[in-house]
Every structure is written in C-alpha cells, then in structure tokens.
C-alpha cells in the first residue's frame, strides 16, 4: 500500500510528458475519433476524406526553427492526381543561418517548463508564490518581504491622480454600487475626482438589522483616508432622518453616531443614503472628507431596501460651478445665466448662482397659475419647452396687482440679465456673456384702442439663437442672442359674478442660426513653365 501511494504521488506530481515527435504531432486534430476538415495530419482521416480537402491548414509541423538541423513533417495535397491525395514527407530541415543552434546542454531551453502540480506538501509554498494578483517572471528573485514595498507606497498615496482609487487604512473607500444585477456590491472603490452617484438594493431583515454592517453608519466612516503623511478622518457632516412616508428631517446635533437598533418592530437608524464630500488641494492631496447620511426605518415586511450613494470632489477654496459644456453648450445641460452687479465701468464679476438661473414656469397638475407659485424648471440647452397654466379671472380682481403677479409667475423671482455664450464662460469675462433682450408686445384688440385699459402679460417667449462655432469636424454650440418677448393683452372688465379663464403660456425655443460652413481648400499648385525666348531659334 505504501508503494502504490508513492507511485500514485509520483504520477500525480508530474504532468504528462510532452509529445515531441513531429510525425505524431497534429495541432488541427481537435475532434476525437472524427476527421477534422482540411487537417492533413489527422490520423482519423481516410483517403476518401483527403480527396475532399481543398488545402492543408497546417502544411509543416516543425520544432524550434532555430535549430541547425531538425526533422519536419510536411503535409501537402496533390491536386493534380484524381482523386486528390495527401502527401506526407518527413524531411530534415536545415537552417542556413550561421547562428543556428547546433547543440544545447541546457534541457529547458527548447521546451516549455512543466508546471508544478500542487500536492499537499507544496501547496502552501505555491499559494504564497502565485496566489496574489501578480507574480514576477523569475521565481528566484521574488521578494517575499512585504516591508520592502511600503516605502514606495507611501509616496504614491500622497498624490492622487484622476481615477485612482481613494485608499483608506484597510482597503479602498467603498462606494457600494450595483454590479451585473441591482444588488449592492461593496467592492466598488471610489475613484479620485470621479463624481459618482449610485443606487443599489440591499437585502435586509429586521430581526438582525443591527448585525448587518452595511446598515450602520460606522461601516462608512470607520477607516480613515490615507493622504500624504497623515490620515484624514471622515467626519459626519449632517444626518437626515427619513420617516416612513418620505419626509426628511435634519438633525441638529450631527456629532452623535446613531447605530441601527430594533424598536417596535421597526429597524431604525438604518443607513439609506450616504453622500461623501471630499475636499482636495490643486496638487491632488486630500485634506478633508465629510459624509452626509440619510437614516431611515425598515419595517418588518421589507426584505430589501434601496440605498443611494454619492461622492463629489471639491477643490479647496473654490466654489464649484457646474459647467454646461466645454466650451460649447452640451444639449441637455442648463443654460447658465447671471446678473451684472451695478457699477460702471463693468465690474469684474457676475453673480451666477442657482437663483439667477434661466428658468421657465413649470406646469403643475393643478394648472392654476396663482396657486403654483414658485414651481420653475431650468431651461436646458437645445430642448424647446412650452409650459403654462390657467388663470381664473373674477370681477373682483384688480388689474395692476394681477399684472404684477402674472409677470412674477412668467418670469420668476429673479429673471437674469445675461446669459453665458459658452458653456464654460467665466464670470470675469464680460464679453462672453450675452444680454437678454426684453421685448413687450401688446395685443391690441382693434375695437378697443383705449390706452388706459389694463394690460396683463399672458405669454413669455424666450428665443435663444445659437450658432455652431469652431472647427468643421467638432462644432461647438454658442449662444448668440437671447430675446424674451412678453405678450400682453387687454383685460376687459368683467361684469360682477362672471369669471373667465385665460391660458398663460411660456415657451423656450432654440434656433440654430449658424451659417453653412464653407470648407476651404488649398489652391492647386500652378505649373509655371515658360519656354526660353530662343526656343524656336532657326525659325523665329
């Protein structure tokens, strides 16, 4: 029994011996016990099969061609014969080069090394050598010392480049995201300067919700981020508690950690969303990290919850301004607008913030203009929009306040004065901003020409004229002109008790006014030949 086990081990330890006889080697013989098409070296093929072949897919089987003299098996089809037959020749191929290998005394030179078969004895050693993500080509020089690698890593964590995973003490800053299916995978690292927002589903159970790591705040702020020579702790920026019906309340004291626990059949303080904000310097070093949490409650029936994660990077001492294109506007991004603060000559900065965005009225389900105050939608470049509401006019309404209210409804609280002509226009460049031209059109009814009658605005039309700018192959969109037209109509005095419904509309239209591009070509070279003046000498 001992001998057989040794023999078995000896058999297992070595891989089967490689075939080196060129006459028996056939690479195209893939089907077992069947003839492969066009495979002239296949032993399963008969003479009738050979007569059907058109060509030999493998004409020569040869060993290492650098040897001075070696055997080669040559297969060819004799198409002249009827039926075609296969010719097999075993020849001595001679390499005429003077640097051909005459002999070797190093056995592994011409053959691939047989890999070590893992057994119980050498498994640990093989796992150490080859179990990692990388291993060096020369196993003799492989360095088993992990301390030697640390000094080089310390330099690299100080400076991050775009896309490099943000490293923390134990691994990477995790941003759980759906992989393949919608279930959360915790192995997704956050890349530096890559703003991401992900949503995924996690399976939960209320009974052991305090043992599920991914539901507790600690899981997300536990390890500190490695940056230059020190570590940056992740601070809790704010905590919002979401109730069962979706209302969120900000907690005033954001320092206390709230861990999930079971209460009245609900699991409270479960993490429903995390929003990381990382502040970095302009050289790529992370200096601050904060996380804003949304905590919620999980009911007993829920088998899974949806978690949302977001990460955003901000450079220190800057206000992030989202660009709408670089440089031309990108379709779908909001049109940037702003005000010019009073002052002459032009002061340096425009105030371009969210309040000064170009917005239009957003239609609501109630369609009542007076009730839907404040619902506005941003104007997105390239998207023509129309929206409106219905105004119920009763006899008791006074004209002037109504006109002012409608103007507010149409234009919004702070209608901007300037629109950026490029998607990345800076506030300092005054010439990159286009003023909004405001027009007033009043629809005068022909029969009523009284000037003192009341005019109320009923529609606002914003026309944005843009052109293609730049090269022919990569045109950039540039806004050239913005015109806001307010159309007013006269309001007839209603008899008491009656009411009228007037539709109020606002629209945005984008018009492409780019002139057709004319590609220009280089002038053809002209051939400048002049005959010498005495060319026709004897005759002229």
């Amino acid at each position, binding site marked *: 029994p001992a001998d057989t086990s040794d023999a078995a081990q000896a058999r297992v330890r070595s891989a089967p011996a490689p075939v080196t006889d060129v006459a028996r080697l056939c690479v195209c013989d893939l089907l077992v016990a069947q003839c492969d098409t066009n495979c002239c070296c296949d032993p399963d093929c008969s003479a009738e099969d050979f007569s059907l072949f058109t060509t030999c897919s493998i004409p020569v089987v040869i060993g290492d061609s650098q040897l001075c003299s070696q055997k080669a098996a040559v297969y060819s089809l004799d198409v002249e014969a009827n039926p075609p037959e296969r010719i097999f020749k075993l020849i001595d191929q001679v390499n005429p080069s003077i640097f051909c290998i*005459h002999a070797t005394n190093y056995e592994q030179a011409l053959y691939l090394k047989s890999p070590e078969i893992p057994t119980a004895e050498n498994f640990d050693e093989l796992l150490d050598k080859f179990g990692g993500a990388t291993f060096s080509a020369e196993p003799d020089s492989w360095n088993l010392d992990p301390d030697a690698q640390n000094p080089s890593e310390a330099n690299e964590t100080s400076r991050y480049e775009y896309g490099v995973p943000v490293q923390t003490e134990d691994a990477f800053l995790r941003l759980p995201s759906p992989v393949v299916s919608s279930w959360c995978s915790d192995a997704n690292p956050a890349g530096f300067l890559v703003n991401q927002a992900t949503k995924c589903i996690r399976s939960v159970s209320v009974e052991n919700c305090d043992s599920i790591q991914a539901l507790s705040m600690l899981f997300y702020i536990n390890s500190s981020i490695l940056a230059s020579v020190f570590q940056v702790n992740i601070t809790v920026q704010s905590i919002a508690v979401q109730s069962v019906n979706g209302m969120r309340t900000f907690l005033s004291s954001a320092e206390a950690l709230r861990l999930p626990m079971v209460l009245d059949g609900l699991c409270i303080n479960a993490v429903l969303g995390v929003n990381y904000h990382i502040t970095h310097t302009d050289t790529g070093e992370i200096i601050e990290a904060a996380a804003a949490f949304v905590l919620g409650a999980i009911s007993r029936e829920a088998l899974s919850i949806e978690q949302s994660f977001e990460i955003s990077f901000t450079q220190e001492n800057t206000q992030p301004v989202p660009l709408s294109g670089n440089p031309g506007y990108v379709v779908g991004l909001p049109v940037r607008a702003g005000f010019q603060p009073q002052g002459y000559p032009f002061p340096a900065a425009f105030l371009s913030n969210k309040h000064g965005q170009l917005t239009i009225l957003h239609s609501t389900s109630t369609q009542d203009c007076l009730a839907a105050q404040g619902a506005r939608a941003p104007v997105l470049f390239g998207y023509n929009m129309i929206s409106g509401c219905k105004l119920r006019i009763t006899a008791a309404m006074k004209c002037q306040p109504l006109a002012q209210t409608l103007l507010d409804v149409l234009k919004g609280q702070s209608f901007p004065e300037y629109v950026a002509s490029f998607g990345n226009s800076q506030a300092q460049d005054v010439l990159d901003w286009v003023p909004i031209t405001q027009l007033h059109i009043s629809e005068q009814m022909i029969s009523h020409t009284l000037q003192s009658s009341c005019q109320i605005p009923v529609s606002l039309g914003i026309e944005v004229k843009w052109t293609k700018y730049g090269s022919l192959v990569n045109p950039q969109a540039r806004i050239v002109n913005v015109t806001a037209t307010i159309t007013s109509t006269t309001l007839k005095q209603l008899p008491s008790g009656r009411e009228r419904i007037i539709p109020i509309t606002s629209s945005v239209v984008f018009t492409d006014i780019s002139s057709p591009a004319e590609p220009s070509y280089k002038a053809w070279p002209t051939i400048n030949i002049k005959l010498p003046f005495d060319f026709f000498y004897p005759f002229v």
Partner: protein
Amino acid sequence: NNSSQLSSLPLHILLYVNGVYYIFYFLATLAMIIYKSQVFSYPDDFLAPDLAVLFLMAILEVPRLYLGFKGNLTEAEAPLGLSLGLTVGSVLLCVYLLLWQSYVLWADVLLNAVLLAAYGLESGLKVTAIAAFVS
C-alpha cells in the same frame, strides 16, 4: 647561418597569427554570448560558468603566447615547456566551449574548431622546437 639557428620560424608565425585570431575569437564569442542571453532563455546559473570559462581562457592566453615567443626566440626549453602546459589548459577550455556550453551555435563550432586546429599545430611545432633545443 641557418644551421646554427634553432628557433622555429613557422612556430613564430603561428604564434603571431594565433594572437591576432584570439582577439577576434574572444570578441566574437563574447558578442555571441550576449546575443544568446537576449534571444534565448539563459538563466544566470548557466550564463556564469560560460562567461567564466571564456575570461579564464583569455587570462591564460596572454602568458601562454608570451612564453611561447620568448622560449622560441631565446631557444630555451623551459618557457616553451611551460607554454605547452598552458596550451593544454587552453585546449580543455576550448573543448568545453565547443561541447558543453549552454547553447552551441554553428558559428561557435567554427570558431572553436579553428582555434583547436591552431592549438594542435602549435603544440606539434613546440614539441619539435623543444626537441631541437634539447638535443
């Protein structure tokens, strides 16, 4: 004057040609070892002995040729005999490079064969010269 001169002219010529040829041989073999280490798989365990043999042969060649010249010109047997002994060592090293190198290229075979032939002829002439000097 010919009868009284025992120094062998063919030996002198051969030693001179051997010196020139050896410089070419050394550079060519070194270049080929470098070529082999780049093109083929040549681990350090196998590269080191081959290089050591080549350099040892170069180190032996210098005193061997010097003693050969000196012995032949001064018509003394002792330096010539010592040179013969060093030649035996050189022949062994040359045979190693011909047969037992890790990779023996066809060019290696040619160079070493020519060198062996030169050594053989030289040894014959040295033996003849020693016999002439002794008697």
